[in-house]
């Protein structure tokens, strides 16, 4: 799927979503994210950040239109959506459920019914990309939390998505693995949408940021502008990144 010449990676128009019990989660979201851009979605707990990611991946469906690289999400089959958008969950244990790391990373390509040689190649590349070469035969149960997070990312990279959405990728990580994920985000050429409370990580990796609160977009702009606005952040139960507090 060639997306290099497409300007907008994500276009959301009037997107709303309510939980089955009627609780509104997102209200009239309008977003445009450019191809190759790295965007952060920040906000207090319960703002709707994770729900937005689930809508982008096609797992949940709300009202409004979501286009991923000019493809209308509703019109695409689920199989095609996963090759467009890869979603990395906050808890890697939810996403690693096979006997070995090789199986978890090969899970996506196997479900796409790719030839064995292609699957092997994708697994090797994905693990190299996250720095887990040689981990193929290991069980995810025997890895540290940080390594499991990297393995979860690899399991999505093997699908070769055009866009990767990550839900709080640096939460509960030690400094070493946090740094590895930051480095990966900095070096990646994919369009990335990252939700996080780690504002320092966002400063290092993302170009622009959406501030979400109570299901609505409160602010949007460059990282430098939004994350230096102390009043705006405090009004939305956030605070300045640590590096800018001093």
């Amino acid at each position, binding site marked *: 799927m060639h997306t290099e010449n497409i300007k907008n990676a994500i276009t959301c128009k009037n997107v709303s979503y309510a939980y089955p019990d009627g609780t509104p989660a997102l209200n009239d979201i309008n977003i445009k994210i450019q191809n190759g851009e790295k965007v952060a979605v920040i906000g207090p707990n319960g703002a709707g950040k994770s729900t937005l990611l689930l809508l982008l991946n096609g*797992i949940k469906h709300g009202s409004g239109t979501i286009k991923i690289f000019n493809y209308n999400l509703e019109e695409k089959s689920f199989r095609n959506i*996963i090759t467009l958008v*890869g979603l990395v969950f906050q*808890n890697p244990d*939810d996403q690693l459920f096979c006997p070995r790391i*090789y199986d978890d990373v090969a899970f996506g390509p*196997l479900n796409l019914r790719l030839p064995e040689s292609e699957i092997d190649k994708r697994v090797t590349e994905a693990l190299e990309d996250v720095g887990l070469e040689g981990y193929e035969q290991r069980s995810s149960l025997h890895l540290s939390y940080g390594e499991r997070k990297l393995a979860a990312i690899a399991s999505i990279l093997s699908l070769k998505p055009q866009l990767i959405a990550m839900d709080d990728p640096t939460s509960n990580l030690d400094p070493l693995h946090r740094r590895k994920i930051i480095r990966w985000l900095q070096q990646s050429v994919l369009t990335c949408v990252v939700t996080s409370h780690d504002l320092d990580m966002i400063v290092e990796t993302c170009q622009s940021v959406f501030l979400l609160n109570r299901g609505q977009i409160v602010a949007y702009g460059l990282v430098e502008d939004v994350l230096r606005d102390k009043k705006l952040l405090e009004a939305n139960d956030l605070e300045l990144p640590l590096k800018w507090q001093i």
Partner: protein
Amino acid sequence: MISKLKFQLTDFIKELDPRALLLFYVLFIAIVLIQNPLKQKIIVGVFTLIFLLMLFSGYPLSQYIKRLLAIYPMIFFVTIMLPLTDTSNTGEIFISILGTKIYKTGLDSFIILNIKMLFIFALSLLITKICGTFRLLKSLESLNFPVWIISILLYMRHLFYLLSSEQSRIQTAFHARYRYLPIIKRINVLRGISIVFLTRTIERSDRIYTAMLSKGFSGKIPNTIKTNWRISDTLFSCGFVLYFWVILYAY
């Protein structure tokens, strides 16, 4: 030399094809369940077989014993009413305690059923230890078991693993905070915790399913483990058939 032999036997057992072990398991259950009454020679023969397999499985015996001791209370409580029933209507009473009659036939049934279930659990434990859940499920796949059943079993295995970590965390928190409360209050707290645990189970299972969908799950959890039937598997299969024949009919 004995250590070398032990290592060789351990390697032999660990490298067995899961299908050979499944075949052994099915035959074993058939023999143990069908036999009524359970003759002494069969009990000794089966016990010896399980003991030897456990000894050469590469895992400490103490691990098996601990797991069996953990499972046994469940077996006991499931069969506890049997001694109070006269299963063959002979009316023969073994003992009467405070007016409660314990029948001989009921007691015999209780003992035999406990032994059978212990054997079956011991072998189940042994087989999952030797070849692992995933290789076993892979062998079911090669035996043309419905794919959806295998996917559900794999999913349940992962869910069970996550929930047992969750349960041990809840248990630790419970002990830290509520250990010194009176028993009635502890039961009340446990009731609340059970409801929370049930809710988390549902949420967790939904999240795992959502994660599977996000990776392109299409109804089958692909398993890349390769199984290979070799001469050693044929030898093992013939060996256990011969062994069972000996303990059933030879003397």
